[in-house]
């Protein structure tokens, strides 16, 4: 009797260790560990390093705390980049959302036979590497030999300095961003549209709703979560956009089309002040983080309403 009691008291800790190892949640954790480490290495380390860099002086020899930010806040160009980035990101996201929504409706109403073809074709701008397609746009925008200005000339209009004039240059970079980004909205909204049960529309039809009321009272509320998440996602990506501005205008004319990423590149890499460049690119992080928390909290609160 006492023997068995002793044996079991010895066996207990070993068994729990083995049990702990055998638990599905432990196994799952161990299996995801490589990925967690990889993400840590590829995301957290650079992010932490960027924060560290932002606190150093130009020679990267001395800790200056918020010195880089104090310097930036005193510069007019920085505030212009902030303004420019906001205009760029917000305008582009709004138009991408509207165009994506409208196109998603058109595609949704195409009979399913032809729909795949259209879906595929409409995704093309989003699938081509942006650097490549932006080059094509650059040629289209060329002041002397481009297709756009040629067409304008046929109608007797004056050539437009697409990338030479500040306002036209802003317009051009936003236009290209919209062209590249709309298909993403289209495909997300299309998926959302397909998840709205047809019977809701039929019920609304019988309740007497016209097409606009069906969109306003059924489609939009049913798509709210997808709209919010897609807009947030796109807002973050658009704020961080680099390739379009870099290729199309390189920030010009007179730095008037710079966004955070391109200006940070200019300051940090091309002008050799890496800590200042890191500070520029980090400036938006707290704002985007707050926006993300607010939007995602709202999404979680609403949950799946179906």
């Amino acid at each position, binding site marked *: 009797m006492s023997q068995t009691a002793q044996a079991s008291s010895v066996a207990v800790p070993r068994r729990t260790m083995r049990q702990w190892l055998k638990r599905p949640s432990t196994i799952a954790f161990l299996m995801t560990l490589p990925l967690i480490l990889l993400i840590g290495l590829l995301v957290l380390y650079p992010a932490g390093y960027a924060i560290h860099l932002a606190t150093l002086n130009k020679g990267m020899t001395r800790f200056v705390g918020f010195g880089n930010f104090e310097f930036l806040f005193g510069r007019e160009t920085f505030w212009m980049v902030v303004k420019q980035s906001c205009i760029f990101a917000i305008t582009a996201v709004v138009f991408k959302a509207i165009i994506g929504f409208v196109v998603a409706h058109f595609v949704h109403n195409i009979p399913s036979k032809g729909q795949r073809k259209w879906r595929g074709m409409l995704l093309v701008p989003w699938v081509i590497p942006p650097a490549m397609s932006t080059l094509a746009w650059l040629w289209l925008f060329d002041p002397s030999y481009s297709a756009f200005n040629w067409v304008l000339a046929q109608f007797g209009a004056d050539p437009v300095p697409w990338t030479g004039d500040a306002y036209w240059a802003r317009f051009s970079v936003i236009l290209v961003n919209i062209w590249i980004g709309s298909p993403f909205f289209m495909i997300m909204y299309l998926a959302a549209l397909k998840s709205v*049960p047809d*019977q*809701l529309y*039929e*019920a*609304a*039809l*019988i*309740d*007497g*709703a016209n097409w606009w*009321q069906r969109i306003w*009272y*059924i489609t939009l*509320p*049913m798509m*709210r979560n997808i709209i919010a998440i897609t807009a947030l996602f796109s807002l973050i990506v658009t704020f961080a956009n680099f390739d379009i501005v870099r290729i199309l205008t390189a920030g010009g004319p007179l730095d008037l089309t710079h966004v955070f990423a391109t200006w940070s590149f200019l300051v940090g890499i091309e002008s050799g002040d890496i800590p200042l460049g890191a500070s520029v690119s980090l400036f938006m992080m707290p704002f985007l983080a707050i926006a993300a928390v607010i939007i995602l909290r709202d999404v979680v609160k609403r949950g799946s*309403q*179906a």
Partner: protein
Amino acid sequence: MAEVSLHKVVKRYEGVEAVRGIDLTIGDKEFVVLVGPSGCGKSTTLRMIAGLEEITDGAIQIDGTVVNDVPPKDRDIAMVFQNYALYPHMTVSENMSFGLRLKRFPKDEIRRRVDEAARILNIEDLLERKPRQLSGGQRQRVAMGRAIVRNPKVFLFDEPLSNLDAKLRVQMRTEIKRVHQQVPVTTVYVTHDQVEAMTLADRVVVMNDGVIEQVGAPNELYHSPRTRFVAGFIGSPSMNFLRCKLDREGEDLMVRLADGVALTLPAESRERYREHVGRELVLGLRPEHLTETRPPRNGEVVAPFPAVPDVVEPMGMDTLVYFRVGREEVCARMDPSANPRVGEPITLAANLARMHLLDPGSGLVLGTRPTG
């Protein structure tokens, strides 16, 4: 005052005829149930009345006006869907009042109608909830409430109880009937469940393969089906069909079954079947008319029917006994006290006054008038 009538209505989808020219008139305040197996065209018919499907050919009239090209919102109908189709982001009262709000009814009128409907359906406590916070039965009530507040000319129900569990289904069935008694409106109700059809309907329309098989009051369909389809569809367990030969023996007519069982027809049926003597026919006999031998009630004519049970299913109220006649399986409904056992021969009593003889080729029940 709303009569719904269908004239030679056809629905064709890319070569397939889902509804093949049906004629039907539904009287004012009448409760009509369209019943049939899946794919028989009953839902399509309902959706054509609602205006959710276009009519390929023929005409549908509501209240005397042809509505073929009238959009659903102008037909003054309300529909309850199988999966309720409640708007998930609106509260119960918003769901119910949506149609009225779109039509810009005054606020206090909307309030009054919603409260009234909520009182009838007993959902006054749920008005501020969202659909996801409701049980299946409660959602069903809300869906009905949304129909009631509209005060429409016609109610349309598309298999409204199929998503509920068995117990709730019976409860809601009674509820629907009660609501129709309180709010008498012309109602078209689609179901595949013949029990629902029988219990709810003033008149049942049995559909099969895009055509109407028979229209009639529930008891009429049960007692005098015109076709084999209706005879087999109405009633549970369904009617037994046995191949047989009709013979004459002196004055008597006899039905001879596959394994030599001969049943003598009651005298009053002789006239009806005389012209078919000598033919191969099908005997239709419901399980409830094939019972244990018992003293015949007033005027009942029974014939002995020997059987060896294969399967015995006690149901509580009755015991179902399955046995074979030749190669055909037959079901009988016995009193539990008869206590049948598998493999032990018994003699059942066939109530031949309730039997039907069918033409094996056309499937028509003999001696009834053809569907007019």
